[in-house]
């Protein structure tokens, strides 16, 4: 099935550094969303970027979308220990209807070391 694939699978950085995670997908999308999951908890929505947008910001988060390369990146600047979590991208694919639920990738596990 169509699926976003995050890269890397795991990332370990020092507090204060920037963290970049990538997501690739296979077919045309309507939008791409990034989610965060703390261990053993539900997913929390971070940012939604539509196919006609190239970049969005939210606080320390920056998301880019390159539809020609079918890829997106999530940048977390000035990381904190509390950013430690798994991050997932999810895609809404064309055609656009109630029968096309979000398809999630396997996630990137981010560890921020204090």
């Amino acid at each position, binding site marked *: 099935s169509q699926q976003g694939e995050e890269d890397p699978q795991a990332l370990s950085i020092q507090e204060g550094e920037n963290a970049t995670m990538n997501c690739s997908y296979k077919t045309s999308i309507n939008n791409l969303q990034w989610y965060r999951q703390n261990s053993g908890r539900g997913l929390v929505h971070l940012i939604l970027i539509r196919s006609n947008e190239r970049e969005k910001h939210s606080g320390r988060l920056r998301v880019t979308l390159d539809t020609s390369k079918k890829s997106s990146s999530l940048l977390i600047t000035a990381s904190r220990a509390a950013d430690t979590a798994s991050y997932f991208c999810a895609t809404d694919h064309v055609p656009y209807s109630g029968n096309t639920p979000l*398809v999630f990738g396997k996630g990137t596990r981010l560890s921020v070391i204090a």
Partner: protein
Amino acid sequence: SQTIHQWPATLVQPVGSPLSLECTVEGTSNPNLYWYRQAAGRGLQLLFYSVGIGQISSEVPQNLSASRPQDRQFILSSKKLLLSDSGFYLCAWRERPGNTIYFGEGSWLTVV
């Protein structure tokens, strides 16, 4: 504001026993509803989704089933659990295609 409730939070069930996980959404009407499963350290696998009462679509054939008896209620069931059914089950909703999906806190199921 809208909220989603999912329960129970954790359960341990013997092989062959039945299962019922319940999810309700408040503050909206006619939501799209979803059940996902997440195996340990893995991504999310879509199990079922529903765009209306009594309308259930299954993504993965297995011994699980879903029902939507009311507009904002989504139930995941099994008549006989297998060891492989163990995992983290997440209910989710959104108002319409293209919108953000909001997740419940999840239910940890261990089949022993």
